[in-house]
Structures are given as structure tokens and as C-alpha cells.
């Protein structure tokens, strides 16, 4: 029996959390099959019958829009003999037909026809053999979440303070809506899934070490001088929110404007933004870096994209990068976002691959168990407790990582 609370002691966490199969098993039960997990965005399935295959932990699910326009999330498993009812990654179907014995379900999950029905006991009811829905499904601004557990706090409560930051991101669109239909870059790495949330909002500390060249190239291409963000540490940027979420809030850190005049498309975009949000808010949205967001346990909202983390085993993880297009923005702005995304992210990008290489080396190094503790203590003496129960620190502080682990410890303990 693992004693998770003993493995997480404030500023130090134990190496076994990244490699012990028993910890991984507990995570499946206590986290992945318990809490709200992000599944996909509504815009991925715009029409009736559209579906995408996803996974929650190790369990295959399908997110589908039914004939009435309602979005459902179902376990991807036939109620007859357990075959996958949906084997394509995405597409459109009038109904799900299991390939094994032809049982067919509507996109709302109802069993339409078991085959050779005359051979089944007449007392059996079709209504008892519909696709199994995830017990809880809910959405916020188009982001669809589901939970394998019927019990727990509402999505609203789960997201809590993270909603404010999700809003800021969505509001980069002149209609307030995003479009997540630009495809998915899929990457795998040999390392624990928790490295991804830990690393993704910590670029201020590791950036100068592993991303220096890419940052320089980025500045050269865009005319944006990012160095101001790294020269001085800024307070109140890093935040841990109750619920294990993490944020880098850059609202207090206005960037120097690009050293070149804005393009025609950018001027039009600014006008559209002002028309919707008013001059002041539009200015704020356009001159500060959007927040970086992590929503426990698997959703990241970073610069150009939505990133999801999918655990495979203690030392293997899948990562999905889905670029976010801004509905209503000029086409050139969205194409620019795609090119920016390819510059930074995916298997062949200039930034995130260095992070992934670090995670793989991390996994190897953590086999060395001579002193099996990792230290996450930067800035602990200056953590500022916030009224919401979260806390904040300076840009390079490990404040949010401590917040993640504190929440993780609670959830893992409760799930024991």
C-alpha cells in the first residue's frame, strides 16, 4: 500500500511518483477515473453524426453529436461482446454499427437493432442495452469534459478560478468562440505524464537554458522582444489555483510592441476586437501575452493551442497539440497562428521538442534512487496566499508546481 501523502512533503516529492506502477494504478482510479477530464472541443464535431475518438486514462471513449445537436460522450464498447463500436479516429456516421455482430446504436447511444433479435429472450429490453454514457458530461465555453465517476463536484466548481483565464483565451476571438478543427499533432515520449504539466508552465525558469536559441529566432521573425519577460522576475505571474490548476498570468506584464508596423490583417483584427470588447479590453488582450493555463489533470491551453496529456504507462505518455483558430478573425491571422504553432510545437517544432527530450532524460535519471527526493522549493519563502485559497509567486518560482502536487496528494489520498 503506497502512502502518497508521505511521498509529497511540501517542497520535496519522491521519485517513485514518476515510476512506480502502483502509483500509476492509483492515479487511474483516483484521478483519471474520478475527476473531470477534458475530452474535446465542440467545434471538432460541428454537425449531427460527427464524432472523435478519445481516451480517458486508458479507457476508450467517443464524443459524438447526436441528431438533435446534443453532445454525448460514451464508452467505446459494444454492449454485446465488447468490441469497439467506433474504430475510426474521427468522422461522421448515421449510427454506430459494431463490426463484430452488427449491433447498431444511434448517435444518442440508443440500441437500434441487435441482430437476429428473434433469438433473444423477449423479456430483454433494448433500452437496457444502449451504449454506456460517461456518468457525467458537461462543458464550459465549448470545452467538453467528462467523468468516469458518477459522484463528485460540478464542472463549474472543478474549474473554479481557471474559468477567468479560459475566458481571456477565448476572448482572443472577435466572436468569443474558438475553432479547433485545424488537426492534431500527436507526439509520444518515454516519460511520466506529470512531467508535462510540471514543465509546460515553467518556461520562465528553464527557458533560458533549453530554449534560448529558439527564443532568439522567434524574436527575429516576429519583431517581438521577449527578453523583457526574462530579465527581471515579475511578481504575481505564477499562480496555483485551488483544484490543482496552474496559471501564468501575464496581464501585469505588457510586452514591448513589435518593432515593425502591424500588417493590414492585424489592423483589421484589432478593429474587430475593439468592436466587440471596447478599446480598453481589446488593447489589454492584444498587448499582453495570453495566460498559460493548466487544468488538472489533462488540459493545457498554451499560446497557440490546446494540449492534452494522455498517460499510457508510468514511463510512456501521448501528447496531443491542437492549434486553436480564432473564429471571426481575418484568415491571415489564423494562418499566422498555424505557422507560429509549427515553429514552436509538435515533433519538429523549435521549442517543445527540447522539453520532451528533457522529460525522457528525467525518466532515466529518476531510476537513480540513491537520494530519491526532488526539490520544488524555489520561492516558497515568498509565496503569497490569495483569497481564493490559491497562491502566487514570481515568474521563476515553483509556486504552481507545489500547488499541483498539493492537490495531487489530496486527490490520491482520497482515492485510496
Amino acid at each position, binding site marked *: 500500500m503506497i502512502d502518497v501523502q508521505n511521498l509529497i512533503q511540501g517542497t520535496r516529492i519522491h521519485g517513485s511518483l514518476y515510476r512506480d506502477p502502483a502509483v500509476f494504478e492509483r492515479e487511474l482510479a483516483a484521478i483519471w477515473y474520478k475527476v473531470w477530464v477534458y475530452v474535446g472541443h465542440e467545434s471538432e464535431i460541428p454537425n449531427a453524426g460527427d464524432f472523435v475518438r478519445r481516451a480517458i486514462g486508458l479507457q476508450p471513449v467517443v464524443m459524438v453529436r447526436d441528431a438533435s445537436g446534443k453532445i454525448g460522450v460514451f464508452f467505446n464498447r459494444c454492449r454485446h461482446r465488447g468490441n469497439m463500436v467506433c474504430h475510426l*479516429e474521427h468522422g461522421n456516421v448515421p449510427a454506430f454499427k459494431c463490426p463484430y455482430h452488427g449491433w447498431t446504436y444511434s448517435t444518442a447511444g440508443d440500441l437500434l437493432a441487435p441482430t437476429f433479435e428473434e433469438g433473444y429472450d423477449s423479456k430483454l429490453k433494448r433500452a437496457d442495452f444502449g451504449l454506456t454514457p460517461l456518468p457525467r458530461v458537461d462543458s464550459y465555453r465549448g470545452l467538453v469534459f467528462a467523468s468516469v465517476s458518477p459522484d463528485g463536484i460540478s464542472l463549474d466548481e472543478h474549474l473554479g478560478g481557471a474559468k477567468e483565464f479560459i475566458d481571456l483565451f477565448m476572448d482572443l476571438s472577435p466572436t468569443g468562440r474558438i475553432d479547433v*478543427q*485545424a*488537426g*492534431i*499533432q*500527436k*507526439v*509520444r*515520449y*518515454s516519460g511520466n505524464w506529470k512531467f508535462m504539466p510540471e514543465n509546460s508552465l515553467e518556461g520562465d525558469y528553464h527557458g533560458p537554458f*533549453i530554449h*534560448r*536559441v*529558439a527564443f532568439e*529566432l522567434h524574436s*527575429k*521573425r516576429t519583431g517581438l522582444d521577449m527578453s523583457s519577460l526574462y530579465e527581471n522576475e515579475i511578481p504575481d505571474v505564477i499562480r496555483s489555483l485551488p483544484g490543482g490548476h496552474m496559471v501564468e498570468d501575464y496581464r501585469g506584464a505588457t510586452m514591448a510592441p513589435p518593432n515593425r508596423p502591424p500588417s493590414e490583417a492585424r489592423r483589421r483584427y484589432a478593429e474587430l476586437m475593439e468592436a466587440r470588447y471596447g478599446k480598453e479590453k481589446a488593447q489589454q488582450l492584444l498587448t499582453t501575452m495570453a495566460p498559460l493555463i493548466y487544468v488538472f489533470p489533462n488540459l493545457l491551453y498554451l499560446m497557440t493551442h490546446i494540449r492534452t496529456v494522455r498517460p499510457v504507462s508510468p514511463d510512456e505518455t*501521448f*501528447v496531443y*497539440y491542437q*492549434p486553436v*483558430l480564432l473564429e471571426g478573425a481575418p*484568415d491571415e491571422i*489564423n*494562418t499566422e497562428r*498555424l*505557422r507560429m*504553432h*509549427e*515553429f514552436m510545437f*509538435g*515533433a*519538429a517544432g*523549435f521549442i517543445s*521538442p*527540447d522539453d*520532451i*527530450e*528533457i522529460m*525522457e*532524460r528525467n525518466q532515466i535519471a529518476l531510476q537513480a534512487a540513491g537520494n530519491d527526493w526532488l526539490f520544488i522549493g524555489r520561492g516558497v519563502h515568498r509565496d503569497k496566499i490569495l483569497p481564493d485559497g490559491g497562491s502566487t509567486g514570481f515568474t521563476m518560482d515553483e509556486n504552481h508546481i507545489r500547488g499541483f502536487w498539493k492537490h495531487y496528494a489530496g486527490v490520491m489520498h482520497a482515492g485510496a
Partner: protein
Amino acid sequence: MPDEFEAFLTYEARLMDEGRYREWLDLWTEDAQYWVPCNEDDIDPARAISIIYDDRDRLVQRVERLLSGSVLAQQPRPRMRRVISNIEVSELAGGEVTVESNFILGSMRAGTKHLWIGRTIHHLRRVEGSFMMARKKVLLIDNDAEIPLLQFLI
């Protein structure tokens, strides 16, 4: 006649395999486009994400970064060899040629061997008795799957 195309592709492959990235860069025209689509082979790059979609500037940056010594997945540089075959050539107007070929690329790094497999469509331009690459599109068979890092030239 096909020999000159095979010779060119073989030379390009050697430069990529051996990390001779600057020489590889010299094979490109000014209006270069280096494209590795993602999810499907035929996508609209204005609306859909690619694995790589480089213009000349981005290509120069890619090489600059690979040679900077700072790319962690290039420490050490992956050892790799690729085999190119199934070459099909179609002449276009104005001395331009489309050459399609299949490749199998074995890479070895940090104790892990990986096979990259795909089809390449080169758009070559005749320049002073040789060729330059104007466009290159690489169709990976696993461009819709979870792939490891691609921190080299393909």
C-alpha cells in the same frame, strides 16, 4: 535518364543522413517550400496544421538551430541511414520536374531505434546542369499517429 534523378536524391539523402545541413540548404531555391503534412497527405496549410511547413526563412532557421549545438535531441546527433526507391519522374514545363520516391529511414539515438517511412514528392528545377529543390513534400505513413521527436531533416 532516371539516373540523374536517382543520383540527386541519393546525394540529398546522404547530406541529411550525415548532418551536412548547410550543404543541404544550398540545394534549395529562394522560393523554397519544405512541407511535412500532418493528419492527412492532402490538407490546406492555410487552415490545417502541418508537422513542418517551412518557407526559405524558416528553413534557414531550422538549419541554424540544428547546427547551434543547443538542440537537446541532437546531443548526440541521431545516427541515421535512409534507402530511397520506387522513383517516378514526370517532366513539367519550363525545365521543372516532379520526382516521387519512397524512403525507409532508420534512426538510432539514445538507445532507441525508430523507422520513419514515407513518400517524398520533390519539385526540382534545372539549374546549370544540375537540380535545385523548389518544393519538397514528405508524406509520412504515420503523420496521423503519435510519433517521437523529429529533430533532424526528413
